[in-house]
């Protein structure tokens, strides 16, 4: 290796390690082609160094941009799946599904109150529309429908924090000059399938719990399961499964390591953990103490997973 080549390689150390692993050899080749028969005392020119530094900045910021866009996509996918559950529950409450919902619509028939609640419940369809628009490469439509969905959702509690973060990521990440990304078509159907599975799980759990409510042992093991069945409980479960999946992939398939996926999952762990902690209440009895213990454990595991994923994401940049 000539002195000039080693100087070029030193300049390329400005670039992220993963990018260098992919591009270093051809970039060195291009540099040396451009240098021609230069003497051994030749050095990389400042404009060349500046161009590599600018590329390094763009790549490092780009990793965050990709993570923010993926945060929006994952957050919307989860909300679209939950929206399928909410829509099915709304249809059930209004007697449009062939199963006993066990609840009645809010408000008197034909009252403004009932209409308002119905509009809010049906606004779930906006999240599905936003997700489909994003997957199909229509971020502007996704932003408009998600914003409308958020306004109708009326975010007022920490439970809505993951949704606020998702919409913020959608607005910030999909700017005019963001690179276009083509998603496979099957991704469009994913929340529908996940939503159907979630609806089945939530409905069966509700029926099972209702059936056991008269038992002297109630709530028994339900106190351990209940914290997983709220929206933020289900999103904790989904996030923990995704985090485990990524760590397994990270260890087993190094070529599939990416900075965006772990960073996006790490970003989402924070609002979900905060949403979980909002469920804590003063422990007056054994059941509340159990609920609190599970909730704290969820938040701690989520935050630890977030720290681990952030470190893995930073290492892959």
């Amino acid at each position, binding site marked *: 290796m000539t002195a000039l080549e080693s100087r070029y390689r030193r300049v390329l150390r400005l670039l992220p390690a993963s990018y260098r692993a992919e591009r270093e050899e*051809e970039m060195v080749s291009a*540099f*040396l082609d451009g240098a021609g028969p230069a003497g051994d005392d030749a050095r990389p020119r400042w404009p060349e160094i500046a161009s590599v530094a600018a*590329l390094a900045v*763009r790549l490092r910021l780009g990793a965050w941009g990709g993570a923010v866009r993926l945060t929006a996509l994952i957050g919307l996918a989860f909300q679209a799946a939950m929206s399928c559950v909410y829509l099915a529950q709304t249809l059930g409450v209004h007697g449009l599904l062939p199963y006993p919902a066990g609840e009645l619509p809010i408000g008197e028939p034909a009252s403004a109150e009932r209409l308002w609640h119905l509009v809010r419940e049906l606004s779930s369809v906006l999240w599905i529309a936003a997700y489909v628009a994003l997957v199909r490469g229509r971020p502007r439509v996704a932003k408009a429908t998600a914003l409308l969905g958020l306004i109708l959702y009326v975010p007022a509690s920490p439970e809505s924090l993951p949704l606020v973060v998702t919409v913020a990521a959608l607005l910030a990440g999909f700017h005019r*000059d963001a*690179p276009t990304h083509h998603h496979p078509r099957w991704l469009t159907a994913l929340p529908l399938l996940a939503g159907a599975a979630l609806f089945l799980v939530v409905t069966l759990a509700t029926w099972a719990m209702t059936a056991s409510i008269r038992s002297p042992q109630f709530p028994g093991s339900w106190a351990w399961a209940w914290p997983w069945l709220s929206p933020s409980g289900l999103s904790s479960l989904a996030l923990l499964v995704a985090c485990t999946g990524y760590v397994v992939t990270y260890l087993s398939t190094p070529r599939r390591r990416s900075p965006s996926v772990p960073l996006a999952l790490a970003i989402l762990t924070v609002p979900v953990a905060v949403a979980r902690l909002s469920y804590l209440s003063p422990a007056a009895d054994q059941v509340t103490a159990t609920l609190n213990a599970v909730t704290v454990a969820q938040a701690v595991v989520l935050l630890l997973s977030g720290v681990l994923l952030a470190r893995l994401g930073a290492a892959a940049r």
Partner: protein
Amino acid sequence: MLGPMNSRGLTEQAFLVLTTLADASRHGYGIVQEVERLSEGRVQLKIGTLYGVLDRLAADELVSLDREEAHQGRLRRYYRLTDQGVQALEAEAARLAAHARYATERLRARHAGGPA
């Protein structure tokens, strides 16, 4: 930094890189030389800039890797236009040609004593 594709079309650097690949696949320094020749020395791509443009063009699926060769013991990767890249280049060339035509017509009208 603007990407090669944005709502206003291709950036000039991206347009020139795609143009160099229209007739043949080329490696990194080959593209740099050809861009300089096409622009009559006005655009001299630095290597860092070139790879930034190539990354974005590849992300937008306008260029792809054609082949790898060893040259004097060093790796050369050749890039080529994809079908989408050909379409994007044709659209941009037509857009620029239309703009040039409008400008020429208006200048001609101005010289002929039309509205200033």
